[in-house]
Structure formats: C-alpha cells, structure tokens
C-alpha cells in the first residue's frame, strides 16, 4: 500500500467531489470512507488508475450517505447528473481547499487538524499521535471544524495569510508519532507554492527549508538541545539549504517583502556561515530592523537584541533589550546570554536559572539549567 500516494490523492479527490457539487463536510467523510475501502481492497486488487478508483468509490459513498439521510429525490437528481471521471483539479480548486481548511472562523487547532486531514491526507489516528491527544479528541475537532466551515459559508474562506499561519503552526510542532509534522508542513507548503504564485508563500517555504536543513544538528545523540553557535555544521543538509536560498532569492526579486521572507533571509544568513564566527551579524540586525518595520512585536525585538549583542557586543545587546517586558518568554535566557558576554557570570548564572524555571519545553529547561550549572561550577 503506497501511503504517500494515498495522501497525495486525498486533496485531489476531495476537490473533484466538491466541484461536482457535494458539500465540503459530506465530501470529506466520503473520501475517508473511500480511503478505508482502498486500504481493504487495494492490496489484493490494485486499481489501474488509483485516482479514478478513489473518486468513483468516494462518490458512491457520498451518494449512499446522502440517500440514507432521506432527502432522496434531490440526491437522485444529482446522481443522474453525475459526470464521468473528470479532468484533474485545476490550481484554483486545490487552492480553495487550503483556504477552506484555514477558514478564519476556525480555532488554530481545528484549522490545523482539518488541514492535515483534508489537504495532507493524514488519518485521524496519525494526527492524534502527532499531537499526543486521544483519537476521539481529534475526530471531534475535525467534525466540529467541518460543521463550522459549512455554517460560515464557503464564500468567506480564508486567505493566503491564514493558510500560511496554519502551515507555520504545523511546521513548528516538530514531531512525535509516525508522522513528522515539520516534513509534512514542508510538503504542504511546497504543494501550495506550486499552485499559487505569491512571494510570502515562497518566503514561508524558504524559511521552512532553511530551518529543516539544520534539524539534524539541533540535538545531540542524547536528544539535548545544541545551540546554533555550537552546532556541527557538517550535519546541515546542504541540498535543502541551497533550495531554500534559491526559493528565497526569487521571492525577494519580486520586491514584495513580507515577514516570512525577512525571517527566511535571517535563516539564510545563518545557513551561509561555514563557522559560527563567520556569521554576518551586521546584516542579520538589518534584516531584524526590516522585520520590525513589517511586524513590530516584542518577540522580534527580543531576537533582534541577541543579534545586536553579537554584532556590537554585550552592552549594545543589553541596551537593545532595555524596555522590553521581562515577563516575555525567553527574556531571561537572552538577558543571561548578554550578561555573560559582558563578563558578568554571576548575574548570567542567576538569569539562566530563572530562565530554566520559566522554560516552555523540557529540552529548553535542561539546556538552560546546564548553562547555569556551567557558570556556577566554574566560579
């Protein structure tokens, strides 16, 4: 059973059904039923044309389900009008599917679950494993999301910006279970970039590729976090870096800068350095200034302070940090790093310990505790 093929077919089949006039929620259910049929019968009896097979079976399932609901005559009229296996969906159709799944009426977690299933072709179980929640919880999330989309109306579906936010959420989740969400986000963003010509879609794709390229180096053999400066750069995936840089360059050439392109530019400057000391921090600060112009947020200012500290020294970094709310996530970690650069290990150790207490993830906490311990045991 070719799972990758099935996953690729899901959005295409769904699009065909919706275009034939089926409601999105009903069509999605029918495609899931069709998938189950495929899993049952394909191993013994592989179809000649998998997509046509899946369209036919899903459509039959849709007709069965709607018949069972009782509105017989209208459905049968629709059955009469059933077209034969049609052409592949057009670019606009598949784009519409992304928009539907990122509908602004959905909460982020619902939009993510619906996108992974309807566009990504993941099963409910795979999504549940990836997010470490019960399968029933994900099933509810998806069916509520479908109801919300149906109620809110297809006319006001999301736009590219909401789709990009959803994909970025998926990308940032990392992975657990048998689906790698970061890789899945890259696949979906790549697919989106192939149907829509938009500099920020390219920007997100570049950003994801550049971060994904560095993933193997981000943790050591024990799973502990390795900071950027200490990463073994020979473990970066140079093919992905090259692709990310190429995608970014052609996006930047369009001269319609957006936050994803600016973040990708920063990631590209990191990826460009053979050794940490060769990082062009001056240019990185300039890109942070650009990013602030596009999207002023405390988190961006915090990251900029790190870059300023590297470009112009610890005191300049601390000056850039001044005025930012100390309760921001990672604020004390950044302050600790800058104080250490200023040659004040006592303050740095105290701040690292505080940052560890406030860390959002176990690995970050472990890393920060180790930093505090390093300074404390050296003194």
């Amino acid at each position, binding site marked *: 059973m070719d799972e990758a093929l099935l996953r690729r077919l899901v959005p295409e089949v769904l699009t065909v059904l919706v275009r034939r006039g089926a409601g999105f929620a009903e069509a999605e259910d029918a495609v899931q039923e069709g998938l189950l049929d495929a899993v049952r019968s394909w191993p013994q009896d592989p179809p000649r044309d998998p997509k046509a097979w899946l369209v036919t079976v899903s459509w039959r399932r849709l007709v069965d389900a709607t018949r069972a609901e009782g509105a017989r005559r209208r459905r049968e009229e629709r059955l009469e009008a059933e077209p034969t296996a049609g052409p592949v969906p057009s670019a606009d159709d598949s784009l519409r599917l992304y928009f539907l799944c990122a509908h602004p009426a959905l909460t982020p977690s619902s939009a993510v679950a619906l996108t992974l299933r309807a566009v990504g072709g993941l099963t409910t179980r795979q999504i549940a494993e990836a997010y470490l929640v019960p399968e029933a919880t994900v099933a509810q999330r998806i069916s509520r999301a479908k109801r919300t989309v149906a109620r809110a109306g297809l006319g006001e579906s999301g736009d590219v910006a909401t789709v990009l936010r959803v994909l970025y959420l998926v*990308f940032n*989740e990392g992975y657990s279970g048998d689906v790698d969400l970061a890789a899945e986000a890259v696949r979906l963003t790549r697919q989106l970039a192939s149907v829509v010509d938009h500099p920020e879609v390219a920007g997100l794709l570049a950003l994801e590729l550049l971060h994904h390229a560095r993933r193997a180096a981000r943790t050591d053999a024990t799973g502990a976090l390795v900071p950027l400066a200490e990463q073994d750069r020979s473990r970066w995936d140079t093919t992905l870096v090259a692709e990310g840089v190429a995608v970014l360059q052609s996006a930047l050439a369009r001269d319609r800068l957006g936050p994803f392109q600016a973040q990708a530019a920063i990631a590209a400057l990191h990826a460009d350095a053979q050794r940490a000391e060769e990082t062009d921090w001056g240019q990185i600060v300039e890109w942070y200034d650009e990013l602030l112009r596009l999207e002023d947020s405390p988190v961006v200012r915090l990251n900029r302070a790190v870059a300023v500290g590297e470009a112009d020294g610890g005191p300049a970094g601390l000056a850039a940090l001044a005025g930012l709310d100390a309760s921001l996530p990672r604020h004390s970690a950044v302050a600790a790093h800058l104080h250490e650069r200023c040659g004040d290990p006592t303050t740095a150790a105290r701040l690292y310990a505080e940052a560890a207490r406030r860390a959002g993830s176990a690995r970050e906490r472990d890393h920060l505790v180790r930093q505090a311990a390093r300074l404390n045991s050296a003194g």
Partner: protein
Amino acid sequence: MAKHLLLKHYRGAPAGVNDVPMDRWTPDEVTAHLRYMDEFADRLRQTGEYVDGQALSPGGAWVRYDGEGRPPVTDGPFAETKDLVAGWMVIDVDSWDRAVELAGELSAAPGAGGKPIHEWLEVRPFLTAPPTVTE
C-alpha cells in the same frame, strides 16, 4: 495546541468560598456535583479539548531508595503532607486564557445548597517539545 493540567486538591489549596465537606451535603447535592463534573468532561470531548482525567485515592505513601539490596523505605500510608492531589484533568487548548476559563467553569461545580463551591483549582502548562524555530 497546548496541554494543561487541571489539578484538584483534597487539601493544600486555599479554602473554596462554599467550603462545606462533601459528607455534609445531601445525596442529591453530591449527585449533582458528580454529574456536573461528568458533563464538563463530556463537553470538552465535544469541543476536541479533552485529553485525559483521573481521580486519585487519598491513601498513598512516600517511597524512597534505601541503599543496595535493601527494600525501599515507605512513609505512610498517610503521608505527612500539607498538599494532597485528588485528581486531574488534562486539556489541550489554544491558549492559556482558555485553560483559565475552563478551570473557572470546573470550579463552579455545585456543592452544598446547590451553590457553586468556588474551589481553587491549580492550572499548570505541560512542558512540551521545543518549537522547531527558536534561533
């Protein structure tokens, strides 16, 4: 998108507003209280925010290693502790605000006189895998 633990305590939390021990309620009040908790969990299943929930027996013990070849030392069965966890619920919600909102709802479970008990619940975010993008 973020899991939170709602902790209910037998003792250790500040007293609730309607602070009458459960064994002084009427049987109907107890039933209403338990039903409220069940319905709360069901509602979260419907919204796709429920992960897990369990009640804990108050009887337990502290246990520690006592050296090579020796059985572990236990202290108890009634541990000398000011705090005692009665049970938990794990929820997966989109924001801290939503976690607080839900804890507030759970705290409104009816108690003596059919009035909300206004008990204190502890809400703790889970530590998770780090986001992919941190630098």
